[in-house]
Structures are given as structure tokens and as C-alpha cells.
């Protein structure tokens, strides 16, 4: 019973994070809200695994935590440098 109550609380927190993603004036607010949503989803998956009595959900939670981090860093890199691979100038690209 307590586990379902906690899961419902986590779902409410996910909804609140989405509200910030919708309202967020700057793009960085939206990135923050998506990052927070990802972390809370990891908690939700592990809680849901416990609720339905299936411990193999934790692998999904671990993979989701990995992907969430990499996605946030990739989006940030894109926003900060305007490009995901800023290293090569046009001359270098012609050398291949």
C-alpha cells in the first residue's frame, strides 16, 4: 500500500516537472525539466518494478539513467556550441 502511495506521489512529481517544461521561459529551463523528469522516471521504474514484484525492471532503470545523462549532455553541447561536432573547418572536411 505504501509502495503504491509512493508511486502515485512520484507520478505527481513527474506531472509537475512537465508543467515546468511547458512553462519554462528559457530553453535551459526546459532542459532542466526534462533532466528532472528523466531522473524521476528512473525512480518510477524501480518503484513499479517493486510494485509488480519483478526485479528485472531495475536493469531498465539503470539503462534509463545512463541514457538520460547522455541525452542531457548532448543537448547541452548542441546548445552551447551550435553544433555537435564543431571541430572540423570546411578545408579539413574536403581533405577526406
Amino acid at each position, binding site marked *: 500500500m505504501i509502495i503504491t502511495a509512493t508511486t502515485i*506521489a512520484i507520478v505527481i512529481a513527474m506531472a509537475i516537472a512537465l508543467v515546468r517544461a511547458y512553462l519554462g521561459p528559457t530553453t535551459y529551463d526546459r532542459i532542466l525539466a526534462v533532466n*528532472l523528469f528523466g531522473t524521476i522516471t528512473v525512480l518510477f521504474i524501480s518503484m513499479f518494478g*517493486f510494485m509488480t514484484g519483478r526485479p528485472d525492471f531495475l536493469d531498465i532503470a539503470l539503462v534509463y539513467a545512463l541514457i538520460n545523462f547522455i541525452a542531457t549532455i548532448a543537448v*547541452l553541447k548542441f546548445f552551447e556550441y551550435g553544433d555537435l561536432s564543431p571541430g572540423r573547418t570546411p578545408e579539413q572536411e574536403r581533405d577526406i
Partner: protein
Amino acid sequence: MNILAELLAYACLVSGAFFVIVGAIGVIRMPEFYTRLHAASVTETLGSILVIAGLVLLAGFSLVSVKLLMVLLFILFTSCTAVHALAKAAIHGGLMPETDDDD
């Protein structure tokens, strides 16, 4: 002994859920981007520690709790790094934090 562990687990779970909700509300109510960063990391650190600690207490001494501790370890490492990178990208992008001598 089992009842005590279960009670402690339920206490950890409830307080963990409480801090997750407090962090999420903090992200909504905070006036400015950098204060929201702080509120978000409240959820990611304290909320996840308590929730996963509660689950570990429920799972007892088994492979499941090892996986749970791996998830917790990874959340703690990555969420702080991601929020730090986010703050750096925001400052680099020109979003200056409001200081009190702005007005």
C-alpha cells in the same frame, strides 16, 4: 527484526516521495533559472537516496539491492554532473543570474 526493517523502509519511502515532490514544486515555484537548478538537484540527490534506500531495505540482502545501489550510485554521479554542465551552458549562453544590485 524483519518488522523493524519494513517499518524503516516505509518511513524512507514516504520521506523520499515527500522530497521528490518538494523538489518538483521547488522547480515550479522558484523565480529564476539558477534557483530552479538548486531545487531540481534537491530531488535528484535526497529524494532518490531515500526512495532507493527504502527499496533496498525492502529488498533485503540480495542481487536486487545490489542493482538498486548501482542505480543510486549512478544517479548521484550523473545528476550533479548534468546540472553543473547545464549551469555552465546557461552562463556560456548568456543567461546571467539575477544579483541584488540589478535594480
